[in-house]
């Protein structure tokens, strides 16, 4: 199995060979920062392109195909245009909060993005309480949304912000509980250890019934966390025109747009890591030849493949279901998902305590 830490320590050795350690570390940090930024931008563009193509095929259409081959350059053109679009200054807004909101949203998504283990030895932030940190980091995002809605001094944005306040934080509970269920199974909160622990089988197979329930609950709640249909209430197009980011233009809006897609990826990435084995290849015990072939595929390919599979699932849901109403959303969370995940947690504890898992 390819271990990325070999590469990073090789680079570190190379750099410290001809420059002081401090400078080398500084340089590495800069490189990592640039890498995060690039990966962030590229992933967002890939996801937007994917969304547009996937929904086009669901809807018997072709999707973008004029800009570049197969419309590959379409999203680049969009991002580029947004970058050179005017940023409107509002008259009666709360300037500070209005300008702060995109920072919060981007900060939340980059911090949680940095937690994802992409390959063995290739996780940027690797805390021993990684799961916990990720949940904390991602919940900053809702602050950004609330700020955006509140500071714009617009009635639609305010309703959008209030909706997201009620919705996103409610669903955080289910996300937390379903991940907690898996933490009970894995016995660790560090992402890298969670993945390592799945060498002999992905968690969703190891934890069987409660793991599958937790996976489903997580998918629903995660979908709601990212404000995507059928839970796209905070930005319900046909109700609140554009929801909480109604008053944002140009790149300001672009950040919300990018963050929305990146959050989709983060939710999928966490699902892939916690439930589907992260960068761990698919192994079937006993079939050594098969396992060797699977090992040959690098870990980051596995990770992205799994993450994009979950992304596709979520897109499928988004383009199929109509939107829920605010009271139904909260009812679904508090009267169904929370009790289910609580009992699921108990079930998992029982299974772990009595050693009934694989």
């Amino acid at each position, binding site marked *: 199995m390819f271990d990325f830490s070999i590469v990073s320590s090789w680079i570190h050795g190379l750099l410290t060979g001809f420059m002081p350690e401090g400078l080398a570390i500084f340089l590495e940090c800069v490189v990592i920062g640039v890498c995060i930024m690039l990966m962030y931008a590229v992933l967002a563009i890939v996801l937007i392109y994917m969304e547009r193509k996937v929904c086009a095929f669901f809807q018997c259409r072709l999707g973008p195909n004029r800009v570049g081959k197969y419309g590959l350059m379409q999203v680049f053109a969009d991002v580029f245009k947004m970058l050179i679009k005017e940023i409107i200054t509002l008259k*009666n807004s709360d300037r500070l909060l209005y300008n702060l909101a995109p*920072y919060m949203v981007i900060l939340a998504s980059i911090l949680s993005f940095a937690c994802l283990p992409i390959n063995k030895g290739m996780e940027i932030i690797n805390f021993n309480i990684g799961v916990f940190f990720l949940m904390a980091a991602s919940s900053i995002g809702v602050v950004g949304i609330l700020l955006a809605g509140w500071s714009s001094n617009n009635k639609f944005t305010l309703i959008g912000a209030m909706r997201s306040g009620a919705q996103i934080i409610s669903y*955080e509970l289910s996300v937390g509980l379903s991940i*907690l269920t898996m933490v009970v199974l894995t*016995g660790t909160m560090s992402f890298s250890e969670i993945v390592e622990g799945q060498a002999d089988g992905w968690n969703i197979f190891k934890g069987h019934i409660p793991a599958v329930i937790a996976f489903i609950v997580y998918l629903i709640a995660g979908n709601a966390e990212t404000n995507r249909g059928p839970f796209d209430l905070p930005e319900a197009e046909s109700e609140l025109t554009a929801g909480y980011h109604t008053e944002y233009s140009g*790149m300001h809006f672009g950040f919300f747009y990018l963050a929305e897609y990146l959050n989709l990826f983060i939710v999928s990435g966490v699902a892939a890591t916690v439930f589907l084995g992260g960068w761990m290849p698919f192994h079937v015990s006993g079939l050594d030849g098969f396992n060797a072939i699977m090992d040959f595929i690098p870990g980051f390919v596995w990770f992205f493949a799994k993450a994009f599979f979950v992304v596709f699932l979520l897109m499928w849901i988004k383009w199929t279901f109509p939107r829920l109403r605010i009271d139904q959303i909260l009812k679904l969370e508090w009267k169904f998902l929370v009790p289910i995940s609580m009992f699921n947690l108990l079930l998992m504890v029982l299974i772990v*305590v009595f050693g009934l898992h694989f």
Partner: protein
Amino acid sequence: MNFMMLVVAVITAIALVVAALFIAKAISPRSFNPQKGEAYECGIPTRGKSWMQFRVGYYLFAILFLMFDVETVFLFPWATIVGELGVNGLISILFFFGVLILGLAYAWKKGALEWK
């Protein structure tokens, strides 16, 4: 190293926004007219204030969330070692868990989970 990476990520996030906004501000065209900065409300001037007292319904869920979230935070450390603690760990946490479920049941019965 990890905490340094955390700082790197934070700086990256801020740098990304600052850089993009800088480019946008520097080269984007600009036009001015008296209506541009006003609030958008389907093309009609806004009536009254947008910032006013808002219904408590939204906050109720926020408060409920806070209660449950804080309690699940306490569950996390236990969850990592429940496999080692075995049955004792399960029974001792059941009391805590019972309180949690009772809390939800109480909120449910009180009608706090209904959207009004």
